[in-house]
């Protein structure tokens, strides 16, 4: 009986779902985190009788008989639905209202992309992530700046002592991808582009479909605890029913064994 092995693949698939759901839940408070889901497929089938084949009596079989071998996980897909905005009042906390990613320069020189806009200043006044990776294009805040203002279009201006007019020190550019689900997560709230995501298209916030910037807010994780809990229950129950299938197959084999009297 294939049922034993078929059900085992079902249990493995549900274990993987649990891993992904656990990661989503662990990141429920992670700024700019995007939840993932697992995509499953059915495994190959063994055709015991092809539909339309001719039977021994010369009649055409109306429909065939195929037995499958279970399911397998093919992909984890990241969902880029927007997370809730949280007000922090911090001048360098930026949320993207709409599509787009910040460009972050990694220590190896490569560009990574992020939705997490909780920026800080480093010792040189550069705008950096919590890991100290600078925002691209680089923006330096003068040490004596009294206040920082970030416009919806990404222009960063500061007010210096003795001056009344704000002075522009740089402007933030966002990028967008045709298929953000194709981005590869790097950890540290960073994504890198892949062949599937397509190239990054840079632009000014608020233009070409890019979102505007909102100062003093951060984007929370897009993890919905209730939804994840429902996912958790669903996968646990699916795990259970697959284990029940294993038990039933086992009992049937036991019954078959009983046929032979000892």
């Amino acid at each position: 009986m294939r049922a034993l092995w078929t059900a085992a693949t079902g249990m493995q698939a549900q274990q993987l779902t649990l891993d992904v759901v656990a990661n989503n839940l662990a990141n429920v408070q992670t700024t700019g985190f995007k939840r993932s889901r697992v995509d499953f497929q059915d495994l190959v089938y063994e055709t015991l009788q092809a539909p339309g084949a001719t039977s021994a009596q010369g009649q055409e079989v109306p429909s065939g008989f195929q037995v499958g071998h279970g399911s397998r996980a093919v992909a984890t897909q990241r969902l880029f639905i927007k997370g809730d905005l949280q007000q922090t009042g911090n001048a360098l906390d930026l949320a993207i209202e709409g599509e787009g990613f910040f460009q972050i320069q990694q220590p190896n020189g490569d560009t990574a992309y992020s939705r997490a806009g909780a920026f800080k200043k480093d010792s040189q006044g550069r705008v950096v992530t919590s890991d100290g990776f600078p925002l691209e294009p680089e923006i330096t805040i003068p040490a004596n700046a009294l206040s920082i203002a970030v416009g919806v279009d990404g222009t960063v201006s500061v007010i210096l002592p003795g001056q009344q007019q704000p002075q522009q020190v740089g402007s933030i550019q966002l990028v967008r991808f045709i298929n953000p689900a194709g981005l590869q997560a790097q950890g540290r709230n960073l994504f890198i582009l892949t062949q599937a995501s397509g190239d990054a298209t840079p632009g000014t916030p608020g233009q070409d479909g890019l979102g505007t910037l909102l100062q003093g807010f951060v984007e929370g994780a897009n993890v919905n605890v209730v939804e994840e809990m429902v996912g958790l229950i669903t996968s646990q129950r699916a795990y259970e029913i697959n284990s029940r299938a294993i038990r039933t197959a086992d009992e049937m084999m036991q019954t078959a064994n009983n046929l032979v009297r000892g």
Partner: protein
Amino acid sequence: MDAAMYKALSGAVAQMRRMDVTAQDMANSNTTGYKGDRLAFSEVLAERLPAEDRSGGWVAVADQRTQFSQGGIQMTGNPLNLALEGDGVFVVETARGERYTRNGGFTLSPDGTIVTPQGDALLGEGGPMQITGTTIEIASDGTVKSEQGEIGRIRVVRFVNPDQVVKEGANLFRAAPANVEEAPGARVVQGGLEQSNVSPIDSMVSLISINRQFEAYERAMKLMDSETEKIVADAGR
């Protein structure tokens, strides 16, 4: 010994087949676009038997039917996640020819073509669809647009006779070209995925019934065996 023992055995074997199919459905209760199967054991069988033995009581699988009923649609918000509402399937181009699927979890290939996770192109009315631009908008009639204009229209077809469709795995169906026709009734839902149409309750009930029926056949075989033993013992006295 008469055929009764073998008739009971045929029943037990049929239940094992049913178990395999049920386990397959249960393993795919979370597979996107999966369609469950149903087995039928019916009197149709008598017609297939040789004329001299139509006493009945023989059991084998008469029919396996894939249930093409609608699965629930889960919204994901991903622009390349497409669900179908109504009778219809997407057409994908594989190395082995055209295949059909209800799994609308698509992605983009390096050159911007809409593909399955395996890399097989989703076919539009004019062949594979290559996305140019940065936004993808797909209308319910399957029209694909970006900000640079219309790209194409997703081909949605239906099976004339769903019983003649073969499952290939990887969420793909195979069907003869004559068994496929345009499906004007199906609607494309962007940002959603169709869940498996396997009902866990039905599967659990099937499991119980399979187990009990299998047991019943075993009892019957044992009973017949002990009857035969008695006859043999009596005759030898």
